[in-house]
């Protein structure tokens, strides 16, 4: 499995990459990744982050004022 140049290894690498890509996409798509972005931002600027609960609460309060349209 570890040999990168064997066919099985190539399939394995591709599968792992596809899975990572999908996971990345879903986290971005659902907005879950925003928390990670926020933590990274805080670390960069040396702020102490708020709790996850407060963070998500602020996000859903913002969603309250920005209605999403869903088309026919």
């Amino acid at each position, binding site marked *: 499995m570890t040999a990168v140049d064997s066919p099985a290894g190539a399939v394995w690498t591709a599968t792992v990459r596809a899975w990572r890509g999908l996971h990345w996409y879903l986290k971005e798509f659902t907005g879950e990744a925003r928390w990670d972005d926020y933590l990274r931002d805080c670390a960069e600027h040396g702020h102490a982050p708020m709790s996850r609960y407060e963070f998500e*609460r602020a996000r859903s309060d913002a969603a309250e004022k920005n209605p999403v349209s869903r*088309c026919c």
Partner: protein
Amino acid sequence: MSGTITTDAGGSSAAGPATGGRRSVKSVLIWTAVAIVGAVCWTVLALVRGETVSALWILFAALCSYAIGYRFYARFITYKVLRVDDNRATPAERLENGVDFDVTDRRVLFGHHFAAIAGAGPLVGPVLAAQMGYLPGTIWIVVGVIFAGAVQDLTVLFFSMRRNGKSLGQMVREEIGMVGGVAALIAVFAIMIIILAVLALIVVNALAESPWGVFSIGLTIPIALFMGVYLRRLRPGRVLEATAIGVALLLLAIVSGGWIQDTGLGDALTLSKEWLVLALVVYGFVASVLPVWLLLTPRDYLSTFMKIGVIVLLAISLIVARPVLQAEAVTDFAKEGTGPVFAGSLFPFVFITIACGALSGFHALISSGTTPKMVAKESQVRLIGYGGMLMESFVAISALIAACVIDQGLYFAMNSPAGATGGTVESAAAFVQGLGFDTTSQDLAAASAAVQEDSLVSRTGGAPALAVGLAQVFSQAFGGGGQAFWYHFALMFEALFILTAVDAGTRVGRFMLQDTIGNVWKRFGDLSWRPGNIIASAVVVALWGSVLYIGVTDPLGGVNQLFPLFGIANQLLAAIALTLGTVLLVKHGKLRYAWVTAIPLAWDLVVTMTASFQKIFSGDPRVGYFTQANVYRDAQNAREVLAPAQDQGQMDQIIFNSTLNGVLQAFFALLVLVVAVHAALVIARAIRANGLPTTEEPPVPSRIVEPAGLFPTAEEKRAMAENERLVGAGTGRSEAEEQ
């Protein structure tokens, strides 16, 4: 299907339009091959008659056409007509606030945008249009999207992006004038009410007398509430976990519907249409006033994932099952206009009925406002605006195929109103035999037994017929029968996202109302003022609820009567959007390219105005609303009862409904004409002045480097690596998983 739009071999989009003369041999070969495959598919569809035709010809004709449209026409519009400029910062970059202005990865935004524009329209419209045969629908869905629908979405997205994400109504007011703006605002609101009512009508027709369906759909509410609490209290922000649990519960809800349907609970959930109307109205109201985290947001996750999952599943199933078309290419109804599903001839009504799959005005509301505030680079509007709409068109093509592969006697028995079929399998069989099909009452009974419904006769609205088609394709593809499960699965998924459109739409309607009235009564415009929320929600729900009730109780068949109104309204909204696009092209001094939006606009106006004219003035009582009212009024004066009415009460109802529909129709058409006339004046002025100032924001240099298309070209990869090196650590939205 995204594979078809990726081979963007011309390269260099960050730097502007493609490389001019030198194209690689590989690229020329690939595109020649795509063109040949597409041409062969179209030729087969056009020429083969009276033999078995595989549905895959339709599928590949569409895919090849999309690929060519995206590669060449969309590129031309993006770079030559609109002249996107990647050196210019988008509003997301300039005004980033992490809330509505937010630089978003193009692939993620594509998903968001597609989830917002796709709904029940592209699924239901083509099913109804299948009464004309598969060819008219296929041609309009494909040609319409390439030259009209995707062009509208792309140009509106671009112009709104250049104006910090202004809404359609705002842009019309500022670029065309106050009168046009007010007319557009009223049109948007009124059209939204009609759309909500018709969507809800489809759900009511699909769930009436179906305890399995009511049970499964009903359970989506507690499931969403659970997800809401989970995301708020138990595990804040873990959307993927919550959605996985939600989808698992949802599948359980579908299966368990089969267990309860023959029990006492099943009897209790066998609801009449009137009760379902009440349930929907209450639901819409509650959803509009509750905090979004509790119901709306989790439901939206559920319906989005189901939507995309089913579309992918359907695409795979079609290729695996390779079903054969049962419908004729062009039926006699197309020529004579006497079809039982909806009245009127091919022109203009096929273009009205296929609402969202080819051209949808409603998309202009999403392409302005929400999406443009999130675009990272200007050149990405091609992928998001044009590409997103191509995907929607693909959904419509799949729905058309699903409707055309089921037994066509069954199709007409399901989609014709009860007044025509008589409501029983025997009378319905006699009715479809009269249309020339050899479907027997045993066939109809067997079809409903296969999906474990009491009856499929006159299950109008398109959703049940589509569910039968999907169940057939899925069980063919995966083997092992399971028709009943797949049928209810399909029904549930349609109802789920119609309900999501209804609750989200009610909320948007509430905001519009509060915003508008807030201009004269400040307090009412405050979105956090409870009484204002409640009153505005109640008004919006009451408006669509009453149209829904009228449709549900209409003796002539609510879908038959209201769907044309919905279709025309949606296309009229498209006319407003395309008018705005044309005005802006001329104002920007691009008169020589104005045909890009002016041609679809002209076509759309001809179609909608002809349809409106026929619906208002036609002497055929099956088509003209007022003639219809008159026929029933005359009969009433002569003390007769005209079928399908059964008593004087129903006669009154028909007269009232038809008159109301006619008035609404005339009102919509008038609003659009007001906008169009004002726009013509502005265009005339702009031509004389060789362009006019617009409200476009001045350019600010951009610092972001990102690819334009789905996959980065070699050149774009180099540019990104270079930028990464200069700026230092990435922004977190890296392309790492592609390197």
